């Protein structure tokens, strides 16, 4: 932003424009005739953004009009959001435009269990009740929760449906159902200790306050380990699409467990077979296990599908890695279709169940190739290629092969000699 203060006349003009309902700022020239002529010898002089003083200029900032990155319904050609009932189902984040490890709240991916409406919850009226197999059932207001010791942690959330396919063109379409934010709240273990768990407590059911009251069963060991009853997201209250005013974070578990609009936790002695739990049932115990905790996964976000390299020369390959098993330990990149792998550089210190940004210096010689990334987490779990997964399951690898459980396979990006980047699965 320029530092030139508005004078009284400009303020009046701005106010008048607001009253008249005009769109401000778009192509308006700078007021005051201070513009430098735009020649190639001098840097351009830009018009000033003249937003609405009451909203985006002072109260709540906007991004530049030149930044147009947006979410899309997922998957492309699948169920729309909103659908014919007005329900929001799956919305993918634009990973191709992401930098760093934090997904802006307004671009965080969204998924709902059956499709859902967003409840407009008054936080003053919202309560979290914990009951069941506890010594002391307790009800907490939002104020109560904010008095308790808090934690602030980076955590990703990934939807079980985050599965690359041949039809997907961009990294938003192949991998956009995952995001990472900074979450603030009270450890669930703090609340459960306050209630006192009975010896028979083995599972807990978390339930939301939205119209369908989505509920899932989870092991009490997870509750006592690292679950967060989160009221904060990226420095402000959790956004409504992400569960305002309260969301349960279940780091590393599949997205559906991260119960939004959290209103109740019931401590129980068995798997409660809620509707969401029913949706998880599988015939094969291995598949059921692989549908639970997220595996080690990474993807190159630049260059990625739909982008185009302007010419040969230097590029820093950039991407994201994460794992439900803990912190990312190693990321490797291949620029020759998987023959040779080299260690990528971490941007920052990898944290448990959080995005890690990696980079890799690359001189593209202009010839056709395929670039890939793979990661290994602190447990030694290594991200597989689809060929490796098929081998494990003793299945032939072809276009019909479907990764059993959550898909954490390596994503290939094909680079043509003209610099265009396409999905290597296509």
């Amino acid at each position, binding site marked *: 932003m320029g530092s030139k203060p508005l004078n009284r006349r400009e303020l009046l003009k701005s106010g008048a424009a607001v009253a008249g309902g005009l769109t401000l700022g778009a192509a308006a020239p700078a007021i005051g005739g201070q513009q430098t002529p735009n020649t190639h010898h001098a840097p351009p002089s830009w018009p000033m953004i003249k937003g609405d003083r009451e909203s985006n200029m002072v109260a709540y900032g906007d991004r530049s009009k030149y930044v147009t990155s947006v979410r899309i319904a997922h998957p492309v050609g699948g169920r729309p959001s909103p659908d014919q*009932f007005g329900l929001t189902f799956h919305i993918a984040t634009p990973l191709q435009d992401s930098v760093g490890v934090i997904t802006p709240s307004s671009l965080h991916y969204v998924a709902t269990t*059956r499709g859902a409406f967003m409840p407009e919850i008054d936080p003053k009226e919202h309560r979290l*009740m914990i*009951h069941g197999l506890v010594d*002391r*059932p*307790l*009800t*907490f207001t939002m104020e*109560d929760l904010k*008095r*308790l010791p808090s934690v602030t942690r980076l955590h990703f959330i990934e939807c079980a449906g985050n599965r690359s396919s041949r039809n997907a063109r961009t990294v938003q379409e192949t991998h956009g159902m995952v995001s990472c934010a900074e979450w603030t709240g009270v450890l669930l273990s*703090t*609340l459960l*200790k*306050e*209630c*006192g768990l009975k010896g028979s407590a083995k599972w807990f*059911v978390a339930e939301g306050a939205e*119209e*369908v*009251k989505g509920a899932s069963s989870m092991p009490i*060991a*997870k509750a006592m380990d*690292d679950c967060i009853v989160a009221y904060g997201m990226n420095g402000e209250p959790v956004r409504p699409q992400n569960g305002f005013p309260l969301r349960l974070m279940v780091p590393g578990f599949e997205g559906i467990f991260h119960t939004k609009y959290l*209103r109740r936790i*019931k401590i129980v002695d*068995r*798997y*409660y*077979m*809620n*509707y969401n*739990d*029913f949706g*998880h*049932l*599988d*015939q*094969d*115990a*291995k*598949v*059921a*296990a*692989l549908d*639970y*905790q*997220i*595996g*080690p996964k990474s993807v190159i976000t630049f260059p990625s599908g739909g982008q185009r390299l302007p010419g040969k020369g230097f590029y820093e390959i950039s991407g994201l890695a994460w794992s439900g*098993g*803990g912190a990312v330990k190693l990321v490797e990149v291949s620029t020759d279709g998987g023959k040779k792998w080299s260690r990528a550089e971490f941007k920052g210190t990898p944290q448990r169940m959080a995005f890690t940004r990696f980079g890799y210096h690359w001189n593209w010689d202009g010839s056709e190739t395929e670039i890939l990334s793979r990661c290994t987490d602190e*447990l030694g*779990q*290594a*991200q*597989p290629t689809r060929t*490796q997964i098929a081998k*494990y399951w003793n299945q032939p690898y072809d276009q019909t092969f479907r990764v059993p459980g959550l898909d954490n396979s390596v994503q290939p990006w094909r680079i043509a000699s003209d610099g265009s980047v396409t999905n290597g699965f296509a």
Partner: protein
Amino acid sequence: MGSPRIRLILPLAFVLPVLLTGGASALAQGPTFGIGRTPTPEEIKAIDISIGPTGEELPPGKGNAKEGAQLYRTRGCAACHGAQGIEGPAPILKSKDPKNPDLWARGRILPLRAPFATTVWDYINRGMPLNREGTLTPDEVYSLTAYLLFINDVIPEDQALDQQSLPKVKMPIGDNYAKLPDWKPRTRRLPGYPH
């Protein structure tokens, strides 16, 4: 909120003997912060809509498939799920391949594949009908559950369901589904699986 004085005094009364005897478990049981209000049993009952496999939370009431068939039309179920339960835009409620000997191949049908009839009752009660969730009476939920179980050949048309009989309904899937692994922190997602 209970009496703050009692909350302050109680932990102190416990801490001293525990420290002297070296025991830790009693200390871990006490509230640390004294924050939060104790809900009344009525408040808990009003919000507790979780119906587990034993059915212990089920409210009194009863219904059968004949009543359920009527409600299926009059409460709007048919509009989204179709008159036969298979032809609407909403998820199907009856298998399109009901004679397939492999139950898993008959489709992900809640009143067919659920291991417990309580899950069907719970979901209708909490999540249906769309936009009017929570408006069905317990009798209506028992009736609709009976109807959906009947059209999937799980129970006969004249069988009444209530608090006692619903949890006893034998679902066709039996034990034929995988149990989740015994999850522990900092363990691989599947033992022996390298990825």
